[in-house]
Every structure is written in C-alpha cells, then in structure tokens.
C-alpha cells in the first residue's frame, strides 16, 4: 500500500470484461447461426485464391449468409490493404 495508490487506475471489474467478451462472441456466433457447414472451408479456399494476388489475412474476409423471403444471399467482402499487391494484382 503506497500513499499514491489512489492515483492508479482501478482495474476494470471482471463482470464488465465478461459482458464485453460475451457481447462480441454471441454476436459473431449469431451471424453464422444456421449457415451451411461448408462456409468456413469456402472462406479458407477463397482466401488462398485471393492471396495469390493480394496480401490479405483471414480477418480481411467476411462471409455472410442472409435469408430473405425465399432466397439466400451469400455476401462476401474482402478488405484489400492499401497498395501492397503480392504479385501483379489488379486493383
């Protein structure tokens, strides 16, 4: 116990940490709920193809399946890094 202890920031209560972690993981799991089992594999194979042309990592690819009345939309977004082509990539 030091005399200046009151100046130190109190550690965040663990319940706050738990809530934040759960909010993120639950949101992530809900977004892939009911999605076809092949999605993770599809995501990895797409990544391999994209990597041939652009340097991206796994987090840069987002796959979403959305259901509208009667039809499904497979949404794929790739965040490309700024002007760092791996080979002779198209922009």
């Amino acid at each position, binding site marked *: 116990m030091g005399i200046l202890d009151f100046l130190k920031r109190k550690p965040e*209560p*663990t*319940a*706050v940490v*738990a*809530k934040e*972690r*759960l*909010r993120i*993981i*639950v949101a992530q*799991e*809900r977004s892939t*709920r*009911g999605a076809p089992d092949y999605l993770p594999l599809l995501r990895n194979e797409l990544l391999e193809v994209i990597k041939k042309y652009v340097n991206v990592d796994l987090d840069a690819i987002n796959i979403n399946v959305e259901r509208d009345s009667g039809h499904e939309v497979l949404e794929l977004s790739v965040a490309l890094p700024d002007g760092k082509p791996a080979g002779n990539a198209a922009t």
Partner: protein
Amino acid sequence: MSAEIIVVTSGKGGVGKTTTSASLATGLAMQGKKVAVIDFDVGLRNLDLIMGCERRVVYDFVNVIHGEASIKQALIKDKRYDNLAVLAASQTRDKDALTQEGVEKVLEDLSKDDFDYIVCDSPAGIEKGAHLAMYFADHAVVVVNPEVSSVRDSDRILGLLASKTRRAERGDGAVSQHLLLTRYNPARVEQGEMLSVKDVEDILGINVVGVIPESENVLAASNSGVPVIMDENSNAGQAYRDTVARILGETRPMRFLDAPKKGFFQRVFGG
C-alpha cells in the same frame, strides 16, 4: 385439451436443470395442475433422486418406448402430491434408446391421460437426448448461470429452440422462451465480480422469467430428496414459487436481487 409441454434445458451441464425441473413440476402440481416430469438423460438418471423417489423406480422411459411396460406402470406417483408423477430415465448405455416416434407416442399418451403439463428435463449438451427433449416443446425454460460459458451455451440453445423444434419446422408459432437465471449472488454482483440480471438480459436479448439466488437450501433439498420449492422458508424456494406463478401468467416483482444489508454489529465488528 392437450397437455402443454415444457422443456427445461441449458446446453451447459451443472447449471440447475434437474433442480429446476423438479421444482417447476412440483410448483405446477401445487397449483392444482396434473403434471408429469420426464428425465431425458438416458444413462445418467438423476431426477428420481432430486424428487426423492429413487427407490420406487421399477420401469423407465426406455421400457415404455420399447413396449416393455405401459406408461401407467412406469409413472411413479409423487408421495406429496397425487397429481404429480415422475418418469425416470433409463440407466442403459445405449444412446439410441430414445427415438422421435417413441417420445412422441409417450407424450401423446400422457396428453390423452389428461395431464395438463409435461415437464421434460433435458440432458446437457446438444446431442440426441437434448434434441428430443426440446423437439415437441410448447414452452422452454432455459436455465442459465451468471457465468461466461453458461451464457454462451444458452444462446446456442435459444437458437436451436427457434429452428430445431417441431413448432419451428411446422411454422406453428415459436416455442415460448423463458430465461431462468440461477445461482445468482447479489453480493458478488455488487462487487462487480458477477454478471448482473441486466447484463445477461442485454447479452441474450430476452428478459428473465425468474432469478433464483444461490442458496445453501438447494443442496439441503437435494440431500433430502425434497424439491427446493417446497422449502417455503428459503429464498430459493420462494423465488421458484414466483417463477412458476409467472410462467402461469401472473405478474410478480423480482425478489432477492439485492445483497442483504449488513447490520450495525456486522459493520462495526466485521463478518
């Protein structure tokens, strides 16, 4: 009039499913309803112990499904309420002993026998036993502890209830979902060491139907084979009574959400 089927489920083990099934079934019987409670945990029979009828099990759920006993022979009448009966799980290790057709037939027979409520005590996990326990449900009580793995698993279960049940498949309207928070410790919540009721409601996006405080009376009740709801002097017992009333449509305020205030002597002398 057919029976209302209520599944008590959670995903994670050890959160209080069987304790809740026993108290919910007994609570409904206390309200004059005719109730059967079924243990779906094939291979790990335990509801009989919590209900205090373990020495009277002659036939079990799988015997009935295999046609080795009638439902009437297998139902164990509760000694305290004669409008309450228990169907024990089998101790067989054969995981495929339960079939969808078999379960459906048992539920239909109970319904024809004028039961008002059938409480299905689900095993932990999301395997076949858990799937069959929830498949025919009209209502679900999802038991959750204020703890990260339990909250996450209960979200999976809420997703399964919305998609992998007969009601969902037929488009008969959703299974009504009731979230029950158990093992709640208000003192630890106030210290910031435990998720609060509001935290859990925010994360899962549904309101709780009841909050059962962590209580030594729960262990005492299971030790003696008396569902804790019968202990009217315990907070847990009273919280279960409130929960049953809410499930039956009554409005009751939540109790036992605040830590007991320390008295003068405790504040001065500690403890």
